[in-house]
Every structure is written in C-alpha cells, then in structure tokens.
C-alpha cells in the first residue's frame, strides 16, 4: 500500500521526501541525546546538592536533638536549619513527624525510602507530590530513633528541561524543513537535464525533427544525451525517407499521367467515330484519368509540406476581388457576402489561397446542402474567409479529424472522401498553416443548420512588388 503510494509519487517528491525523512531522523537523534544528557547532568547535580544540604541539616538536627526531645519541641530546630527556597524539611521522631510546609508531609515520603531509612541507611528518591517533582532525601538519626527527610523541588530544572525540549524540537523541525528544501533543490538540480530532455522530446513530437540536445558538461549525462540524439537522428532519417518516398512516387507518376492525359485526349478527339461501347469505355477512362491526375497533383502538393519544400510566395491580394474571382471560376453556384467591405489587402499566396477557397466550396457542395455562401471579413490584424452551407453540419467529434488526410467522416456523410482525392481539407489546413493562419469548422453563426468553415490568416506585411517576383 505504502509502496504503491510511494511509487506513484514523482521522482522529485520522493527525493524531497527522503531528504526530509533523513533530516527528521537526524534531528530526532540529536534532540533525544541532548535532552537525555541535559536531564542527567542537571538532575544529578541537583540531587548531589540536595543530598549535601540534607546531610548538613541532618547533622544539625542530630546535634540539637536530645534523647528526650519531644516532637512538639523540634519546631525551633527546624526553623534554624539552612532552608533554601523550594526545600522542605521533615523530621520524624519515633512515630511522630513534624513538617515545616504542607507541601511536604509524612504522607509524601515514599514507603520504600522510609523502609530504607528505618533500616539505618540514607537514601534519596525522586517523587512527584501533587504534580510537583521532588527529590526526597532521607537520613536516619539512629541515636534518637529519629529520621530527617528533606524534599527539594526540582520544578525549575523541569522548566529548563521543558524549554530546552521545545527549543530542540523547534530546531529539529526547522532542520527537517531545511532538509526537505535542500532535497527539493537538489532533486530539481539533478533533474534539470531531464527537463531539457522533456522539452526536446516535446519539440520532436511537435514536428521539429532537427531538435538535438546540447552535449552536457556532466559526464554522467553524456550517454543519455548521446542516445537521445541518436534516437532523434534515426527518427528524422526515417520520417524524411518516408516523406521523400511519397514525394518521389508522386513525381514518378507524373510522366505516365502526361501520356495518359494526352492519349485520352487524342481518343476523345475521335470519339464520334467510335462505337457506343467504346465511347462508354473511353468516358470511364477519361473520368478516372482526370481523377487520378487530381489525386497525384494533391499528393505532390501535400508532399511538399512533408519534405519541407513548401514555401510561401506572398503577393498583395485584394481578398474581396479575389473571392469574387474564385466564385466566378467555381463550377458551383455560390453567394458572396462581404458586408460593407470594399477592399481587403492581404499578403497571400494566390495559387494556394485559390485552392483553399476552391476546396472549401467543393467540400460544401459535396457534403453540405442548400446555398453555399462565402463570407469575407476582418478581425484586428487577421482576414477571415468563411464558407457556409445549409447541410447537416459536422458532428463535434469529427471537427478535428476532418482536416486529416484521407479522413472518413461518419454521420455528416462521406465528408473527406468520395469523389474527391481525400486530401482537399488536409491541403486547406496545410496552406492556411503556411500563411500562419488557422482553419476550423463549427456551426453557422446565425444558428441555422449548416456547417461553417472559417479560415483566418494574418493580413501580414504587404510586400514590395519587386520582392516577390
């Protein structure tokens, strides 16, 4: 149970815990030995003193006692003794006793000490009377069958010991806290390289494949760094190889596609002279060659992002005119809403933005329904292009994956594949990302049914004309 809890704690928490435990044990040991030694020294010293005072007082009492002295007469004797504060004499003559103070009377004398004294030996004992600590010394006076007892209160010693205990406890607690702090600091220091490894791993996961760790000053960490960098290198190689492969395959496909396209066109030029069966076969061939060409073009386009050769060719674009022209060239009927906007100049890659708008409109036409609307607007330093339809919308669970390659939606229909290449929305996301913008899908803003795909790109610095040529 404890083991499992311990295991669940983080490494830093465990190191801190161990340091704190060590500090606690050490300060406990020091506290205990300090207290024990102090107690022994102080109390023994006090006992010795009490004993010697008691012996001296007993001597005086013995001298003053006659054989016939009655208990009623000893008051004077007791009064003349050297009594320090906190000392209580008690004289026993025969069976009668006489005390000076009620704090210490015959009942307070422990019977074992009384037995010892009656047997003729001197002795001392620590007792507690009414909660007060006392050292009781008993000395027999055999000549007169008497005994002299003296109690010395040790509550001042107890006070000192208590105070000392509190101080030692406080110091111990402080030491424990200090150890914990030290442990926390040491563990953080020891784990700093791990933090760097974590950051590097996150950066790798985010796609920064050339992330490497700096060689550490500490020899103990060199092997960790070396193997991490080795892993990152082979990961990078592997991913680059895959990306290059896809890119090269697509490139290789272009030549046969050229031949196919040209040959199909030559056949189509002579379509009228063909039999109906041949015409049907030719139409099938033409349709699939067209689709195949579109797919390879999309693959080529997207593989440029994978091999890292996609670069933004920004030029000044008036988005209002741009969207008008895009819609004008669209095979679908599209409504434009630019509000009161006359012009909206952005720095954009015209070819790529045209593909973004075309793919979104195409997507709306295939998987939405009703009227397709393209909205242009701006928000602060960003330009907005939104494409809305009146279809069933996109279920919330699919809104993220819909921009992945070859994603296959469920309910909203076959959004993402079908007659398209399956790369349309993925390309939209890549193109928009290249512009430093973002694209997302949600419900229409006016609350009516339908999907709204929103593209937001920074307006950017409008480049000088000569710069982008």
């Amino acid at each position, binding site marked *: 149970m404890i083991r499992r809890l311990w295991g669940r704690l983080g490494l830093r928490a465990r190191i801190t815990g161990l340091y704190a435990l060590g500090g606690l044990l050490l300060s406990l040991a020091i506290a205990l030995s300090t207290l024990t030694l102090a107690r022994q020294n102080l109390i023994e010293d006090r006992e010795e003193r009490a004993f010697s005072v008691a012996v001296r007082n007993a001597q005086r009492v013995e001298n003053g006692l006659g054989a016939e002295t009655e208990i009623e007469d000893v008051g004077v004797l007791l009064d003349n003794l050297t009594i320090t504060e906190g000392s209580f004499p008690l004289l026993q003559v025969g069976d009668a006793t006489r005390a000076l103070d009620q704090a210490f009377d015959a009942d307070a004398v422990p019977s074992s000490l009384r037995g010892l004294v009656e047997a003729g030996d001197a002795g001392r004992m620590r007792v507690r009377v009414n909660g007060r600590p006392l050292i009781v010394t008993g000395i027999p006076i055999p000549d007169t069958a008497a005994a002299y007892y003296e109690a010395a209160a040790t509550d001042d010693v107890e006070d000192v010991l208590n105070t000392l205990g509190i101080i030692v406890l406080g110091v111990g607690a402080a030491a424990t806290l200090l150890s914990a702090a030290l442990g926390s600091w040491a563990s953080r220091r020891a784990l700093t390289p791990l933090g760097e490894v974590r950051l590097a791993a996150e950066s790798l996961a985010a796609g920064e494949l050339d992330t490497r760790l700096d060689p550490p000053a500490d020899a103990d960490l060199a092997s960790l760094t070396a193997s991490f960098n080795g892993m990152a290198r082979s990961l990078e190689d592997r991913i680059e190889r895959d990306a290059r492969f896809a890119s090269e395959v697509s*490139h290789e496909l*272009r*030549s*046969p*596609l*050229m*031949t196919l*396209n*040209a*040959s199909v*066109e*030559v056949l189509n*030029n002579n379509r009228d002279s063909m039999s109906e069966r041949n015409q049907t076969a030719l139409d099938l061939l033409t349709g699939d060659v067209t689709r195949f*060409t579109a797919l*390879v*073009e999309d693959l*080529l386009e997207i593989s*440029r992002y994978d091999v890292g*050769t*996609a*670069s933004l*060719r920004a*030029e*000044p674009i008036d988005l209002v*005119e*741009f969207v008008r*022209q895009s819609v*004008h*060239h669209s095979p679908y009927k599209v409504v434009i809403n630019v509000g009161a906007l006359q012009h909206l*100049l952005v720095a954009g890659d*015209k*070819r790529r933005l*045209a593909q973004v708008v075309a793919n979104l409109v195409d997507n709306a036409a295939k998987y939405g329904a009703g009227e397709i609307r393209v909205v242009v607007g701006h928000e602060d330093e960003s330009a907005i292009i939104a494409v809305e339809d009146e279809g069933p919308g996109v279920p919330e669970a699919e809104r993220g994956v819909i921009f992945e390659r070859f994603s296959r939606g469920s309910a909203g229909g076959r959004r993402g594949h079908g007659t398209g290449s399956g790369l349309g929305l993925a390309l939209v996301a890549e193109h928009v990302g290249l512009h430093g913008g973002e694209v997302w899908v949600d419900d229409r803003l006016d609350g009516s049914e339908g999907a709204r795909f929103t593209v937001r790109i920074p307006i950017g610095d*409008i480049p*000088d*004309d*000569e710069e*982008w*040529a």
Partner: protein
Amino acid sequence: MGTRILTVEDDERIRTSVRLALEDEGWTVEEAASGEDALNAFTREAADVVLIDIMLPGIDGFDVCRSIRQASDVPIVMVTARADTHDVVAGLEAGADDYLTKPFAPKELSARIRALLRRARSTEPGAPQMVFGDLEIIPEEGVVRLTGTEVHLTKTEFRLLVELATNPGRVLSREVLLERVWGYGYFGDGRLVDVHIRRLRTKIEPDPANPRYVITIRGLGYKLQS
C-alpha cells in the same frame, strides 16, 4: 504554310502522345529527344513555337531556352516540375514566354500555344506611332527605338510594352496585363508579368535599377510614363 511546333522532351511516350494531341489541332510537330537534337532541329528549320521540358539529360532546358532565344524571338513554352520553385523564374529569365507544370492537359497546352501564336502574328494595322521621351514605339512595324537605335524585343515583351503604351500614365494591374498579353484570367501567375517587365527594362531603360519609363506602382501594378 502550317504552324510548326518543336517539342523537346526526353520521354518518348510523352513526346509521342503530345505530338498526336497537337497534330489533332492541325499543327505540324517536330520532336527532339535531347537539347542537342533540339538545337540542331531549330537551326535546320525554325519553328513557330518551341515547347521545352526543363528536365533534360545533357544540355538542360534552361540552356536550350537561352540558345534559342539568342538566335530567335520565337515563342517558347517551358514545362517545369512545380509551380512554386525557382525553376519558373529561372526559365522565364532564360527567355521562356510562358510555362506549364507537369502533368498538364494537352488542351491547356494548345490554349497556351494559340495565345502565343496570336501574339506573334498580331500586326495591329493602323496603330499610331507612340513616343515617350527617347522611346519610340511603332506597333505596325513591331519596332521599338531608343534614342533612334532599334531595340530588339521578343514578341511578348513587345506586346507588354504596347499594352502599357496604349494606356499612357494609367496603372495596369498584373491581372489585366496577364489577361491582355497572355490570355490568362485573374489566377494567372504574376511572375510572368514581373519577369517580363524586368527583361523589358534591361532593354529599354537607361538605368534598369531606377526605371524611367516602366514604373512600378506598389500594390497596384505598372505604368508607362513619358
């Protein structure tokens, strides 16, 4: 005499299928499998349009383009792998008039060729002579003179200059120039205009870095001033 098209392409299958498609347009097609073949064929008999694949073994497409351009102002269409690389600008600077990316449909190619042929043959009878400072443009003869000396322009450069000259002082956007000179719509590649303007400036501007005639209007386009 029919229109002759020289196609330079090392892939025999593409060459053959493209020839068939172009022949269906009624043009005569001569094939060349390498840069050397192309230069020999062009020296033997000039073509009306040359189609060059940039990726050629031996002498590459850029060099073929430059060599042909030195000898002739024949319209050249080059075929590049991708639209977003420097290949396009490099090809245009080597003298190409237009470009296509693989894989293209032959219909696109014939549309490009038709636009170039239209440009190559337009004589515009009756167009008046125009003068901008030391610059003299005679559309009818296809001649441009700078301080009395004839400047040699390609057909495309000439069309571009005439287009600017017939709207003196007015700014023409890239899109307008793309449409009027190349026959492209709004989504044509603006680099076609920019590279041709650059080449035009090296021929007619006393100091091409500080143009005096063809002026850039930032964010809008170009204009010709006298």
